[in-house]
């Protein structure tokens, strides 16, 4: 009987232990899903989309950038958080047979320019210096807000570059380049100034993988359309417009992003599979060693969409009473105003020359006078000085 009792106690102990274990497992599981929900750690999203090519035959680079802009806007990032830089104007270019449109698909199926586009840097403003200043935040004080990247340490930033590039550089507007070392240093500056939480860098140029080789700051994930030694190819020409409309990598990226909606759960591993070698001819590459989270747990909308975490509060907020504007008493105006004469001929003819601001004498004049004085005193001696002063 003692044995039986002992065994039963042992059994009940084991049962209790098993129940405890199962309970703990459940807790851990809940914590995991809850942790995953809040694991991204960012509170706002920014996007910097740059097209670096000029001239009509580089239509496809502008179409690339505009299609990423369109996807990013559609998934929720507002214009105030997007810095769009287009180096040339294709939509209203005089060679465009359909003005105010930029198409991405043949037969003019999809107009990525749209009706509500805001380009922040355009034309000659797209330079390496301006791009680096936008990234690092070192802009002149009079720069308007729409041209600034006002990110903080809880921002996820998407950076998309497209244009012509080579092994270790990207060409800006056919006149200057940015090297991969400069770009890596700019990202390090951003990290040290805590200007990003996580950064996704996508580049669609020839030999694009060389641009992310030199990154050394944490929390950067990079994708490129081709490896070193390979060219990125363009997709399809349109016979009416006469140029190639998109690059292959961005074309398939756009097709992939069109299936994403703000609540979708696709993660980065799906993004890495976009445009395999059979479709792209070049081999897209990616780099995730600097990124702290596992790419499988990073949602596409973490970078392409915008965060909308809402906290509901039940507190009451007391508003102050409205401020009533006191009007001045009704003064009777004696003065009558009138418009100015647009072309007062007699006044113009007899105009006095406007008083110019007085400037101190120029260096040349001062030097001349010094020379004259020196010669005078050399010739006539210093004792004449007392006659002058």
């Amino acid at each position, binding site marked *: 009987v003692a044995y039986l009792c002992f065994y039963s106690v042992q059994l009940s102990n084991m049962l209790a232990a098993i129940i405890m274990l199962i309970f703990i497992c459940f807790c851990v599981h809940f914590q995991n899903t809850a942790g995953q929900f809040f694991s991204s750690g960012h509170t706002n999203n920014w996007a910097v989309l740059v097209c670096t090519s*000029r*001239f009509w035959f580089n239509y496809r680079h502008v179409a690339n950038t505009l299609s990423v802009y369109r996807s990013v806007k559609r998934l929720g990032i507002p214009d105030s958080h997007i810095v769009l830089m287009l180096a040339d104007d294709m939509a209203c270019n005089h060679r465009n047979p359909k003005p105010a449109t930029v198409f991405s698909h043949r037969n003019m199926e999809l107009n990525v320019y749209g009706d509500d586009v*805001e380009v922040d840097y355009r*034309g000659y403003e797209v330079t390496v210096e301006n791009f680096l200043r936008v990234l690092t935040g070192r802009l002149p004080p009079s720069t308007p807000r729409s041209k600034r990247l006002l990110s903080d340490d809880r921002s996820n930033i998407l950076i998309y570059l497209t244009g012509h590039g080579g092994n270790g550089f990207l060409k800006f507007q056919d006149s200057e380049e940015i090297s991969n070392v400069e770009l890596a240093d700019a990202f390090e500056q951003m990290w040290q100034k805590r200007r990003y939480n996580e950064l996704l860098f996508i580049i669609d140029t020839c030999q694009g993988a060389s641009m992310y080789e030199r990154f050394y700051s944490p929390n950067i994930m990079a994708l490129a359309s081709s490896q070193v030694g390979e060219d990125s190819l363009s997709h399809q020409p349109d016979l009416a417009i006469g140029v190639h409309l998109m690059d292959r990598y961005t074309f398939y990226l756009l097709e992939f992003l069109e299936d994403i909606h703000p609540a979708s759960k696709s993660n980065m591993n799906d993004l890495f599979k976009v445009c395999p070698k059979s479709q792209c001819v070049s081999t897209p590459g990616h780099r995730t060693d600097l990124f702290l989270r596992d790419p499988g747990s990073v949602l596409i909308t973490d970078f392409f969409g915008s965060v909308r975490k809402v906290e509901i509060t039940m507190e009451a907020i007391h508003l102050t009473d409205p401020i009533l504007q006191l009007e001045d008493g009704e003064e009777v*105006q004696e003065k009558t105003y009138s418009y100015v004469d*647009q072309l007062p*001929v007699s006044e113009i003819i007899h105009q006095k020359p406007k008083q110019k601001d007085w400037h101190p004498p120029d260096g040349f004049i001062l030097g001349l006078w010094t020379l004259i004085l020196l010669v005078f005193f050399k010739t006539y001696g210093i004792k004449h000085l007392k006659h002058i002063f």
Partner: protein
Amino acid sequence: TLVARSLLANDFQEELVIRPLHSGDIYASFQFRTLWETDFMRENKVSHYRLFPKSLGQVISKFSVRELHISFTQGYWRTMQWGQPFLPSPPGAELWVWFQDSVTDVDAAWKELTNVLSGIFCASLNFIDSTNTVQPSASFKPLGIVNETDHRFLRYATLPREIVCTENLTPWKKLLPCGSKAGLAVLLKSEKLFHSSFFSQTVHIRPVCQDRECKTTSWELRQTLNVVFDLHTSGQGKREWSLFKMFSRTLTEACPLASSSKIYIDVTDNPQEEYFELSPATPLLSQAVVLGDRRTFSVYDLTQQLFKSVSDLLPAGSMLRPLLHAERYVAGYGLQTGEIHTVMYNNHPFRSFPVLLLDSVPWYLRLYIHTLTVTSKGKDNTPSYIHYQPSKDRMRPHLLEMLVQLPPHSVTEVTVQFERALLKWTEYTPDPNHGFYVGSSVISALVPSSVAMDTNITQEQPLFSSFFPCKEESSYFVRVYTEPLLVNLPTPDFSMPYNVICLTCTVVAVGYGSLYNLLTRSFQIEEPNPRLAKKIANFIRRIRGVPLLS
């Protein structure tokens, strides 16, 4: 009562004028006017905005702006084929501002203002700096109410290279009280607007008289959009137009915030409906004197009737010949010197009138003012007023203002020779072989009018006839812009640094390198490679420690 008076004196009007032109084009002019009686310059900032856009109100109060005129234009207005526009504008972007008397540093305020406006309108107005800003001494008198006109507070700049596209139209539309959701702004679809021969959007802010007595002033914001559609490219070749064909949109309702919303169709050439007819027909006709001509308009009031569409056939007839127009071109050959010719035509048969010519030439075209000649009908015509400010390299452009009397029925030509400068290699644009632009000349004139102009300022006047203030009945003020010039500067070959480096390095490597090698290399005799047997024997000998075979 403590109701703020400013809320009551807020008014918004919109109108559209359609004028068929004799060259087969249609000229459509939209005007949106917001009137607000408020004081931006007082101590506590204005914080309650209703119809007036907040972004512009903050710009006015922060930079103490008295008047602001900005225009973005694509295309060139062809005066001889199309007549005079209601509101002229030069190709590219143009900005001129009158500051208040209280501003101490006008240049700093100007620089900040251009940056802020470049953010509001998505345009590269931040390229306006001291190299393309001028301070006219007699042109561009204020169009609104001012106390005195000291030209030290005026700044004028143009960017002839500026492109206009949907990204400029979008923020412009967002300034309207109804946006592009209701009223006439519904018609503004960018794909049709930019497929035109001429497109211009402007913003004008100025203080105006509220009524005839003019005891109080209110701020007026006018947004205008002028488009000229070419029916041969956009239509089907038939001489018939409709609102849907032009804009690919139909009007649904008037803007609920507008006190008046009207469409005026110019039917002057069709008095008895013999050439064309309008459908839907309207009995409302009104007459207005605009640009020295009395025109008849059919009026459609959107606030009263439900509006479907308007179609019309094109008229045939004669057009009032514009009395003043101008051309400008560069003469000469080569990349060193040249001549700028400005030609002004006075088509009035017997009256002469004075014109004020304003020329702003960038510093890299060095003008030789001693070669300036003004000739009319072959004879010298001395201007009664000349103001010339020479340029300073990389700091200031040339400014030339002249008051010239144009004799009746004549052609006046102004010529000046120039020399092209060589820029530093970093100052070239990325596409230097396109050329460099010189902004349009501005010709301001009081042209004698055959019809008496209306000098009374009333609120009932249609907007298109009340833009330029009219002080006398016998003439009207007009501003004509010439074409911008495109000059080629001597452009270096930008691949030369690369070529020089390659050549120099090759010469150094091959030439000097070989010589250095010959002089400093020392020769040593080397054993030929031994055969296999000898190698094995040497190996065994090395193990044994015995000297090797040679």
